[in-house]
C-alpha cells in the first residue's frame, strides 16, 4: 500500500492543497496594499524525488511573486489566480480519484480471493 505511486499521489495532494490555500490567501488580499501574491511549487521537487525513487523526500516550497505591482504595491492578478484555482481544483479532484482507484484495486484483490 505504500508503493512509489501512492506516495507520489499523496505528496501531490499535499502540494495542490497548499497551492489552493495560497490562492485563497491571494484572493482574500486582492486589495491589500503592499501585498505580494504567494506562489507554491511542489512539482519540481516531486519529479526529482520520484526519479530518485523516494517520493517521501519531496518538498513543498512557498515563495512570493515578483510580478509588477499596481499603484498600491499589490500584485495579485485576479484572472490568473482564478484560472490557476480552477486548474488546481481539477487536478486535486483527479488525484483524489486516482488514490481512490488504487485503493479500489487493492480491495478487489483482497476480496477477490474470498
Amino acid at each position: 500500500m505504500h508503493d512509489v505511486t501512492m506516495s507520489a499521489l499523496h505528496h501531490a495532494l499535499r502540494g495542490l492543497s497548499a497551492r489552493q490555500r495560497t490562492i485563497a490567501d491571494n484572493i482574500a488580499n486582492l486589495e491589500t496594499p503592499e501585498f505580494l501574491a504567494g506562489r507554491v511549487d511542489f512539482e519540481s521537487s516531486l519529479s526529482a524525488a520520484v526519479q530518485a525513487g523516494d517520493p517521501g523526500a519531496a518538498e513543498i516550497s512557498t515563495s512570493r511573486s515578483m510580478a509588477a505591482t499596481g499603484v498600491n504595491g499589490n500584485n495579485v492578478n485576479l484572472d490568473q489566480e482564478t484560472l490557476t484555482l480552477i486548474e488546481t481544483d481539477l487536478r486535486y479532484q483527479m488525484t483524489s480519484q486516482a488514490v481512490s482507484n488504487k485503493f479500489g484495486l487493492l480491495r478487489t484483490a483482497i476480496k477477490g480471493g474470498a
Partner: protein
Amino acid sequence: MPIGPVAGVSSAAFTPLATLAETASTRGAASTQPSGFGDAVIGALDDLSAAHNTADALATRAATGQLADVHDYTIAATEASLATELTVAVRNKAVEAFTSIMNMPL
C-alpha cells in the same frame, strides 16, 4: 511382480524429525528476522494496529480542528480499513486451511 523390501535408502538421505524440530526452534529464538507463519501473523497484526492508531490520531486532530489537509485523514482511514480486510481475509484462509487439514481422514 513381487514387491521387494525397500532397500537402498540410506539414513544420510533423510533428516530425522527430531533434528528438524531443533532447527525450527533455534530459528524462532533468533527473532531478528520474521520466520515462521506465527511471526508473520504477529508482524501483520502490529502493522494493522499501527495503521488504526494513525487513522485514530488524524481523526482526533480533524475533530479538534487541527488537521489542515482532510485527505491525510481519508487516506489513513482507507489504509486502516484495507489492512483490516486483508488481515481478516488471511485469517479466514488460515482457518479454512487448518480446518481442511484437521478434517482429513487419517
